[in-house]
């Protein structure tokens, strides 16, 4: 039996996408020009699917910090922290993140994916229960599988459903860890965190919030949804990433638990992988400083988010329920979604095409992520291109629009 036989249906779908035009999973960025523009397949393209929320990838201070570190400390650590040791930058970055979140402990990981994989699989063992929002990111699901804990999903953003499912768990002495996200990456909707925190207290569970898409975006000082919702004290673990608002790569977890440091010798996705290169950490440290020093970036981001969300809604598109930097346009079916996405790219607008089962409720999405670096003229152009394509492909037919609203 061919090892690859099981992929036959997937391979057919993948090949099929190429026959339909540009393959969304093979897009080549020939040259990145700025946080908002790139040359894509020979055309100057407006980038609206980068998660580059604060637009810091080309920030002069971040580039300068990374460049200096690169010259002084070299290109990489060539190994793990437990074997090769921790650089000063690992310690500084962990101390700065702990300070930023007002927590006692922090561990950094080489990617955001590994932060979820490592924390979840290590915290919850085979005797424990993980209770996760059904729409959680794949890294959360993979962390659940790796640790062997018992896993229960609850209906997306539904505190009553969470409560019901916590009640059903057997009284077997295992700990319970609830996991939700600050902003969900597909629809850009926020968790009703105060209600989840109440359920957590009632059931004596722990609560983890993945602030990957909400750090630097929500909260008075940019600490995310927990800060915005005023329930940081109820959140036991905050997980996040450096690859969105901080413009680089890597992940982290902050917490106050007295025994947190033991995870450094228990968490395999932390122990058995090469640690972050010093130049990356230098840019992240600088980006964190910029995030704190320039709250106007966050204000600008939300202004841009509102312009795009309201502009698309006004055209008759069905968008997510909350104003957030993720603006997802629902497209009725997969075939139309593929044509829509291709037409956008041909018109010089790059968004993320999200297809089921990676989307909630089996619904294809044109997922836009807006940046503080976009200007009003660019956002106007995104809305105009969506309108043209939507009209041409019949997504904006008056009847359809009426039915959707």
């Amino acid at each position, binding site marked *: 039996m061919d090892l690859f036989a099981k992929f036959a249906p997937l391979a057919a779908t993948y090949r099929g996408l190429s026959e339909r035009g540009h393959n969304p999973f093979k897009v080549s960025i020939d040259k990145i020009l700025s946080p908002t523009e790139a040359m894509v397949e020979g055309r100057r393209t407006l980038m609206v699917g980068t998660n580059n929320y604060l637009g810091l990838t080309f920030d002069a201070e971040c580039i300068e910090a990374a460049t200096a570190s690169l010259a002084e400390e070299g290109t990489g650590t060539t190994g793990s922290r437990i074997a090769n040791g921790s650089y000063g930058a690992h310690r500084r970055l962990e101390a700065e993140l702990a300070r930023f979140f007002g927590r006692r402990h922090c561990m950094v990981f080489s990617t955001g994916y590994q932060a979820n994989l490592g924390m979840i699989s290590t915290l919850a063992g085979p005797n424990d229960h993980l209770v996760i929002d*059904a729409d959680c990111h794949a890294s959360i699901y993979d962390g*659940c*599988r790796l640790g*062997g*804990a*018992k*896993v*229960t*999903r609850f*209906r997306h953003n539904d505190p009553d459903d969470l409560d019901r*499912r916590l009640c*059903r*768990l*057997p009284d077997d002495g295992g700990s319970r860890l609830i996991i939700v996200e600050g902003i969900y990456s597909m629809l850009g909707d926020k968790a009703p965190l105060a209600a989840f925190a109440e359920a957590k207290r009632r059931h004596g569970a722990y609560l983890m919030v993945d602030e990957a898409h909400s750090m630097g975006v929500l909260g008075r000082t940019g600490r995310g949804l927990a800060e915005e919702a005023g329930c940081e004290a109820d959140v036991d673990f905050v997980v996040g990433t450096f690859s969105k608002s901080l413009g680089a790569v890597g992940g982290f977890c902050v917490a106050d638990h007295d025994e947190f440091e033991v995870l450094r010798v228990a968490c395999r996705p932390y122990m058995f992988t090469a640690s972050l290169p010093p130049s990356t950490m230098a840019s992240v440290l600088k980006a964190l400083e910029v995030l704190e020093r320039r709250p106007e970036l966050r204000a600008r981001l939300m202004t841009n988010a509102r312009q795009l969300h309201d502009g698309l809604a006004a055209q008759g598109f069905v968008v997510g329920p909350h104003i957030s930097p993720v603006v997802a346009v629902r497209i009725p079916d997969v075939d139309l979604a593929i044509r829509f996405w291709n037409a956008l790219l041909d018109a010089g607008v790059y968004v993320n095409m999200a297809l*089921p*089962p990676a989307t909630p409720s*089996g619904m294809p999405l044109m997922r836009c992520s807006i940046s503080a670096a976009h200007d009003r003229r660019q956002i106007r152009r995104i809305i105009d291109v969506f309108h043209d394509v939507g009209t041409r492909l019949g997504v904006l037919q008056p009847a359809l629009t009426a039915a959707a609203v």
Partner: protein
Amino acid sequence: MSETYQEIVGTISAVLSSATKGQFAVAEDTLLKRDLNLDSLAEMDLLMTLEDRFDVAISLNHLPEIETVRDLALAIDKIKRGAA
């Protein structure tokens, strides 16, 4: 209220028939993935619906071992008896 194994199979079949809009005949040896075209998300959503129907917690870790309607019914039967 404790359903027999056959009643559990009947409930699962009814849920599956309605979820797949009656396109498929569902029997004990029906394969969830291959016969009903359930993808990973649909399988997890099915588990969620069945948790509500039977008022039990069915951990996702059971999924890799569940191929047929029978496997699913046996797993639920076991959880229900364990909880009783």
